[in-house]
Structure formats: structure tokens, C-alpha cells
């Protein structure tokens, strides 16, 4: 079990303050057949799940499984109660104004698409005089560093509505370019969508300055892609002052297949429906239908019930540790990772310089070694990192790389994990460099028993 590599995920309470730094609870027992700890450094892609989360899902299926909302029997009431209390948990976790502002989606990608699609309803379909709808002449501003899921939906929306999509360029040091951003903002700006934390550069964007600029210079709505912040730090939608946020469950110890959209209630209820189906309607007539208010308005069909319950359990789990504590621990871990990587010869870490606060992740490139080769060989050493464009092709293009490798950590990782990763990285780089400079594998000097077959 992967869980056995992360003792904290099977613990049920977190009273000791050193909990987050203790790793060798398992090494106390003498194991006759010891298993090497898996160095899982891909939590920005998806997190591992605490035992409480899978238990909550099992409990749901075994004890309360039933369809929600319209059922008049007790199982259905219990299922509804669990589902809706998960909404309450999310609502409290992000400090929403009220529970109706939280919409469960299949993930963050759907949350962004929901808003982009709903705001780009063709003229004639949208409610008369709905200021929110994107029209020709309107402008959408995003950044070049965004994840594809915060680019492509706005490209589609711009194509459909005739609005113009503008980009804040990437700064190589990972600093949000407030000057250019300020220049792009205008009374025509209808929507701004930025990520809270970059999944590649690890930089934490200055949301309060961004919000201030937007409010001063434009009437735009602000969408925050909070996928890489909600799992790692306290996110308070009211104090952030944005209009929408999106996050995914599977990156915050929750199940796959669930995420959420938060939006201001007044905005949500003015938006055109997204998917049609059961639950989202008030009345269905043959020639038209009338729609329910948020959140039902945007939750057509049987919702991801078990997944919401699992996400609720994940939130309870994270709250049990404390988001402040996780954030503090990860800031330190992130610095350590960054420092250690910078010390490795030929490695370039993307994003802000050492010393700047960053998420506990580093995307990097290694001179002469392709990220995909690197990750494959590190995998052989029991170190799981990711290689590719991390769904950020424009960002990579701007920085002049086609791909990068990325090590991303979560609260269950430790400095020892970082050490082991750096050790394996150095070894792998040494191996690849031995291939260079005309040193052939069949050279007797580098003999390790390998003979090419052909």
C-alpha cells in the first residue's frame, strides 16, 4: 500500500506538534523484508489520500448509498444530508458567504469551463441586458503562465462571444507583471482569470494587488484558479475579494472526480445554466424550462455524492492538522527543495529565486538530459517526479523550454525525501553525462556488464 509510505496518512489524530516532521515511525519496527520508502514527488498532479477519506467513501456506499434530494425515503435523506454537509464543509473551509455559493463539479477544469461557457452564451440566448455575458468588444485578461485549463476555456469563450483574449506575459523570475497588467486593464475588461499559485514556477501571485488594480481600473469579474493554493494554505474568498474560485478535490487529499466552483451568489444566479438535466430545473415545459437557483442551477443530474462525502472527509482531515501549520511547514520544505536543487550542477529551477516564498514544488531543466529520460530513470530509483509541459505549453514556450521535470511536495513529504531525490538525481545525471562526449556504452572503461544486442 502506498499509504504505508506516509505514516501521517494513516494516523487518526495529530496532537503532537512535531507530527509533520516525524517520518520514521515505521523504521522503529525491525522489518525482515524492509520496503524502500516511495519518494512520491508528484502531489501537484494529485495527492495521496488519507485513510479517513477512503473510509468515508466506503461508509457512504455501504451504509447510506442512495440517490439524493428527491427521495422520500430515509436512505435518500441520509445521503442528501451527507452530501449537503460536505457542501457546508467546503463553504466553511474557504469562508464563503453562504453554502449556496459552493457548486460541486467534476473537478476544477469543469468549474472554469462552467463559468466560461455560461458567460459566453450567444446573443439572443442570454437574458436581456445581462451585463455579465461576454460580447464583442469585451476583453478577457489571463496570463501566459496559466494552466491549459485556465487558457483553453477562455479561448473557446472568446471565439464564441467575440470577446478578445489578452495575456499578461511571463516574467522569468516568476514575479507577476503588475505594470503590464495595469496597462491591459480598461473599462472594456469583462473578466480577469489568474492562478493563485503557479503549478510550474511555484510562485504565489499577489492577489490583493491584482484585485485592487482590477477594481480601480475596470468593472471586471475576477476568477481565481486556486488549484494549487486551496490544498496548501488558508484560502479565504471573502478576504481575497475575488468573484469566483475553482479548486479540485484530488489535489487536496480528496477523491478524483470532484472539485468545486465558488462564486458570489448574486453572480451565480444571474448566469445562464451550464448543463441541462435533472435537479437544475424548476419547471420543464415542452417549449422551455425554468431553472433552479444556485447551487442546484449548476448541478444537473445525479451529483458525485460519494466524492463529495470523501472531499468533506479530506477537509476534516486537513483541518485536523491545520492549514496554517501545513502552509508554514511547506514553505520551509519548499525552500529546502529549492536550495538543494540549485546546488546540483547543470540544474536550472524555474520561477522566483531562492529566498522568495514559493509553493513546495520546483520545475527544473537539466543541461543535456531530457526531462522524460530523467523521470524514467528516477522512477527506476523509486523517485516519482513528473516530466512534460505540465499543461503549460505557452509558459514553457515563453521560457524557451519544450518540457521540464517537476518535483512537487505535500505535507506528508519530508526533507529526507528531498535528500533522497537529490541523491538519485545526481546519480542519474552522472550516468547520462557518461553517455556524452563520445563515450560509448561498449567502451571497456565504463563497463557495468551491459552489452548491446544490436
Amino acid at each position, binding site marked *: 500500500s502506498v499509504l504505508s509510505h506516509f505514516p501521517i496518512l494513516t494516523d487518526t489524530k495529530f496532537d503532537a506538534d512535531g507530527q509533520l516532521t516525524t517520518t520514521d515511525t515505521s523504521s522503529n519496527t525491525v522489518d525482515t523484508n524492509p520496503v524502500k520508502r516511495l519518494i512520491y514527488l508528484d502531489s501537484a498532479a494529485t495527492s495521496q489520500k488519507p485513510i479517513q477519506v477512503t473510509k468515508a467513501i466506503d461508509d457512504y456506499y455501504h451504509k447510506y448509498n442512495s440517490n439524493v434530494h428527491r427521495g422520500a425515503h430515509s436512505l435518500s*435523506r441520509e445521503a442528501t444530508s451527507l*452530501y449537503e454537509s460536505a457542501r457546508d464543509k467546503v463553504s466553511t473551509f474557504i469562508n464563503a458567504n453562504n453554502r449556496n455559493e459552493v457548486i460541486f463539479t467534476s473537478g476544477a477544469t469543469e468549474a472554469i469551463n462552467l463559468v466560461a461557457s455560461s458567460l459566453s452564451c450567444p446573443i439572443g440566448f442570454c437574458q436581456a441586458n445581462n451585463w455579465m455575458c461576454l460580447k464583442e468588444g469585451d476583453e478577457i485578461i489571463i496570463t501566459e503562465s496559466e494552466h491549459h485549463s485556465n487558457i483553453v476555456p477562455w479561448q473557446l469563450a472568446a471565439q464564441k462571444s467575440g470577446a478578445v483574449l489578452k495575456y499578461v506575459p511571463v516574467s522569468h523570475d516568476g514575479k507577476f507583471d503588475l505594470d503590464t497588467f495595469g496597462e491591459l486593464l480598461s473599462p472594456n475588461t469583462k473578466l480577469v482569470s489568474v492562478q493563485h499559485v503557479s503549478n510550474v514556477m511555484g510562485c504565489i501571485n499577489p492577489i490583493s494587488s491584482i484585485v485592487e488594480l482590477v477594481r480601480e481600473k475596470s468593472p471586471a469579474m475576477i476568477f481565481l484558479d486556486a488549484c494549487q493554493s486551496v490544498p496548501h494554505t488558508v484560502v479565504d474568498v471573502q478576504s481575497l475579494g475575488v468573484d469566483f474560485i475553482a479548486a479540485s478535490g484530488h489535489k487536496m487529499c480528496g477523491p478524483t472526480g470532484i472539485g468545486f466552483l465558488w462564486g458570489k451568489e448574486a453572480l451565480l444566479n444571474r448566469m445562464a445554466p451550464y448543463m441541462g438535466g435533472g*435537479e437544475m430545473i424548476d419547471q420543464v415545459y415542452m417549449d422551455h424550462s425554468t431553472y433552479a437557483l444556485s447551487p*442546484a442551477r449548476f448541478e444537473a443530474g445525479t451529483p458525485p455524492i460519494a466524492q463529495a462525502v470523501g472531499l468533506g472527509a479530506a477537509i476534516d482531515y486537513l483541518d485536523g492538522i491545520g492549514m496554517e501549520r501545513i502552509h508554514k511547514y511547506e514553505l520551509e520544505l519548499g525552500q529546502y527543495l529549492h536550495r538543494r536543487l540549485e546546488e546540483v550542477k547543470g540544474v536550472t529551477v524555474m520561477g522566483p529565486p531562492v529566498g522568495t516564498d514559493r509553493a513546495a514544488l520546483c520545475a527544473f531543466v537539466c543541461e543535456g538530459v531530457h526531462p522524460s529520460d530523467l523521470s524514467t530513470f528516477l522512477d527506476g530509483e523509486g523517485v516519482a517526479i513528473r516530466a512534460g509541459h505540465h499543461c503549460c505549453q505557452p509558459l514553457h514556450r515563453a521560457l524557451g523550454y519544450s518540457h521540464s521535470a517537476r518535483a512537487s511536495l505535500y505535507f506528508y513529504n519530508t526533507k529526507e525525501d528531498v535528500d533522497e531525490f537529490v541523491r538519485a538525481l545526481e546519480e542519474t545525471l552522472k550516468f547520462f553525462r557518461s553517455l556524452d562526449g563520445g563515450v560509448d556504452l561498449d567502451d571497456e572503461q565504463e563497463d557495468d556488464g551491459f552489452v548491446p544486442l544490436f
Partner: protein
Amino acid sequence: TTTRLASSSISIESLNLTPELAMMTDAFASIPDEKTRHKQLLYMASKLPDVDDSVRVPENKVPGCLSTVHVDCTVEENDDGRKVVQYFGDSDGLLTKGLLALLIRGLSGCTPEEINAIDPQFVKAAKISQTLTPGRNNGFLNMLAVMKKKAFEAVERENGGDVAVAVSGEEQSTENETAEVVTSFEEIEGKPMYNAIMFTLITVLKPTSITLVDNSSQHAGHAGSKGWAESGESHFALEVVAEAFEGLSLVKRHQLIYMLLGETMPKIHALEIKAKSPSEV
């Protein structure tokens, strides 16, 4: 110590209920099982006055209910000159109609501000939320929301629409019960059973007079005299006068008390009852 009923039950007081709604909430909470709560609702549904077909129009329809619900109200001026509303309505589902009857009774005769202050959480205190689908699409919540909205609209219409409606947050004095009703009793230390019985009966029955005598000591040594393990309370004599008994047979009056005492009842060895309506005193 004197237990003031309204204040001892903190959870209910914080809900800003009207006196009638508070009474019914207490009463429903005292009903020991769900089936009986359902029967009470069905009974209330059967007593709800019929309405004219003109009420069954889309403007009066409550959205999101499993059954069809229509509700509306008129405005009256009460004795102290305040504008209060009187509700009426109907539903094709009987349980829903019972819930509607409960709201109609609990909200009628109050001002829009008093009605608006009501915290919908009282359905939990009344233990009737178990009957309802939780969360969104809760027909009961929608009923309450529609009734709150209609109260303001009706009063505004009555005022010729020229008076802006202000929902003030100021505390309302809703203490307008009749003087004769018993609202408090002297708690006896070390007699939990006595205190529990008194509390329940006063809360729900709103008696004009109630006396409960603990005769357990007279039966000391008698088999079963150790009724409630610690306190030794086992034998009681009750004399109660309440409006609720009006028109009920003797057997029904006893059944009503037994039902109200619910979980306490099996622990009592003997309960001697004298239950009268005020007109019989």
C-alpha cells in the same frame, strides 16, 4: 431554583420564534416517535380550513416541493394597531399540508418583521426535519421563505405601496401569552423525574394549573418502589387543568399525558391523574 421555561430552553429561544410556533416546536419535540409526529401533522392537515380555488394560482405556488403547495395571506390590524398577517393555503400532499398548517398557525397574527426573524432551524428542534429532505430543494424551507416574502408584500400593498419595507434587526417583545397559563415551576433538587414531568407538561400543555405530588415515600419497601434508580421517585399524583383537554374523553386525556411523558413513563411505577379543561374547574 425556578425554571423559566422559555429561557431554560436556550436552543429554542435563539430561534426568534413566535409564541405559538415555540409552543408547537416544544410539543413536537416531546412526541416520542416519528409516526406519531406524522399523525399530528395529518391531524393538523385535516383541520386546515378549505380555501377557494382562486388561491391555487402560480403566484401562490411554493417552488421545489414534492407536492403542490399554494399559500397566501391577508392583512389585519390587531388590538395595538400593528399590521399583522393571516395566512391560508392548501397542498395535495397531506404531510405537506400538515406542515403548511403548522406554519399558518405559527405565523398568523404576527407582523412581517416578527415572521422574518424566525430561524428555519426550528424544524430541527421540533424533530420534524427528519421527515424533510435536507439541504436544497427543501419544500418546507421554501414554504417559510414564500410566507416571509408574502407578509411583506401584503402589508406593503395594504399601505398603498408607498411605505418602504424595512426589516429591522431590533429585538421583538413577543411575550403576549394569557396571564392564567403556568409558565414556570419550582425545581426540586434531587428529584429529576419530578422536574422532567413538570417541564414537559407545562411546556406543551400550557396548563392553567398543575400540581404534581411525589408519593414515593409512602410506598417505600413496596415492590418496584426504586423507580428511578438514584432518586427513588416512583409514585406520583398529578392534577392538571389545560385547554388541551377540552372535548376529550377521560381515556384520551390520559393517553395524551402518557404520550407526552414518552421515555419517562416506563420508569414510573404509578401515576394518578386528574386532568380537566378550564371550563370543568
